[in-house]
């Protein structure tokens, strides 16, 4: 029985498969999702780094932006009004990481944008997808038809064996390089395949029509190299890779510069660039580029064995009363066999090698600011 104010959890097209394979289902972003399977988070994490992991990410939003003019460049120019990225420069068959920004320069969501030749294909976070679609409709409806692709599932195949596992069903998958993205037949189904992911490993994300999702996943899982992986290991993998979790490491109060995402804002959109500014919060974000931001997202390695988790308050030394920052993600890194975290600190304290302290159960634990990724990525560039 559901309480009156509780909405029922949604299910992905792979729900029955998760349950049949022993997935431990938990609520996540309004969906019932597997947090782990029988192998457990540690083994699932290691299997992804050593072989291949298969993730159901169908809860994420998939959106097509179709230019009314028929020219994909018009969709790209329209989308540039909402993101600080150069979308025009994304060539057909390529994909780019982007953020929707707000007028204060904060981040409404982060997303992937692919150019499919005649339209753009967006993947957005599950928890933000309703707002993202409304945002797109409110601002881009003149230039684009905004098409919510709710009838598609999305899976990620990640790890050193992902390429060989996918090649059995998509012969030209090995010819793709990191951030290539294109419509492709996979096991005979009409899919969108991109060489990307959220683990730091080489791998692919595959959008598949919902009615074929179970057949495709079942076929991929027949390969002994491939195991289903839950959200628990997805989180430890992305944390080791230094990748942001929206709503935790970046949110409406953090700018892309504070979030250490300068690399994702191309020169053409910065001051002096061909299409400088023109996105929400441009004034604040470009000022951060020019003058620097007061705080910054950094990688943190606790010196001891105790995990330092999200919400832990950071101090400049072992005794000071005044907090200087906060941990936004933290846990145990199975590939490092050590705790790992990220958080925000004043820019003056953000240099690698700086020691700071986190308060955990009344004790001050030392951490070192460490460059990210913590585990080197293995993208096929």
């Amino acid at each position, binding site marked *: 029985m559901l309480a009156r104010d509780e909405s029922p959890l949604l299910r992905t097209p792979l729900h029955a498969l998760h349950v049949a394979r022993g997935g431990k289902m938990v609520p996540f972003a309004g969906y019932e999702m597997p*947090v*782990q399977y029988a192998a*457990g*988070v*540690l083994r699932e994490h290691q299997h992804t780094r050593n072989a291949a992991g298969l993730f159901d990410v169908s809860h994420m939003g998939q959106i097509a932006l179709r230019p009314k003019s028929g020219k994909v460049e018009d969709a790209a120019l329209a989308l540039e009004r909402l993101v600080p990225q150069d979308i025009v420069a994304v060539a057909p068959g390529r994909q780019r990481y982007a953020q929707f920004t707000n007028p204060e320069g904060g981040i409404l969501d982060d997303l992937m944008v692919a150019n499919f030749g005649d339209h753009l294909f967006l993947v957005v976070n599950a928890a933000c997808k309703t707002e993202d679609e409304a945002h797109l409709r409110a601002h881009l409806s003149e230039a684009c038809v905004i098409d919510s692709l709710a009838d598609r599932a999305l899976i990620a195949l990640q790890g050193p064996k992902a390429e060989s596992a996918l090649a059995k069903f998509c012969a030209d998958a090995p010819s793709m390089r990191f951030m290539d993205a294109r419509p492709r037949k996979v096991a005979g189904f009409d899919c969108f395949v991109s060489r990307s992911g959220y683990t730091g490993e080489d791998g692919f994300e595959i959008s598949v029509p919902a009615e074929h999702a179970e057949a495709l996943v079942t076929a991929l899982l027949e390969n002994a190299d491939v195991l289903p992986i839950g959200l*628990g290991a997805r989180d*430890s993998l992305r944390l080791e890779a230094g990748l942001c979790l929206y709503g935790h490491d970046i949110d409406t109060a953090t700018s892309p510069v504070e979030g250490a995402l300068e690399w994702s804002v191309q020169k053409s959109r910065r001051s002096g660039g061909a299409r400088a500014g023109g996105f929400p919060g441009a004034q604040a974000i470009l000022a951060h580029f020019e003058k620097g931001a007061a705080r910054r997202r950094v990688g943190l390695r606790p010196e001891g*064995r*105790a*995990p330092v*988790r999200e919400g832990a308050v950071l101090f400049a030394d072992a005794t000071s009363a005044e907090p200087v920052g906060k941990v936004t993600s933290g*846990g*145990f890194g*199975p590939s490092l066999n050590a*705790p790992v975290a990220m958080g925000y600190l004043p820019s003056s304290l953000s240099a690698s090698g700086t020691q700071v302290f986190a308060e955990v*159960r009344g004790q001050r634990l030392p951490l070192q600011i460490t460059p990210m990724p913590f585990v080197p990525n293995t993208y096929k560039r």
Partner: protein
Amino acid sequence: MTILYTTDHEWLRIEGDVATIGVTDYAQSQLGDVVFVELPKVGRSLKKAEAAAVVESVKAASDVYAPISGDVLEVNEELAAEPALVNSDAAGKAWFFKLKIADKSELDGLMDEAAYAKHTA
């Protein structure tokens, strides 16, 4: 020798006036992979229901409460060095600490194995 259980999923092995304390196999199955254990200091005087130790899995941190009052006689340093013992041998090698039982009457409220099995069924 008697084994008793708490509703918080701890076990106590009672030998004379010494209680050895750990978490149950059911608890470890719920916790998932354990990656860190913090043990009390030897000599610390624990009150019943006081947070005595911490067990952290890949998912979350949980307190281990003192199921009874008493002074800490010994802690399992091997467990601190190898927290995964909680997953592989919760009822054996993964004991947490030993207490000198302060008040035997505090044992009265605890469950025996049959009652605990019913509690976790």
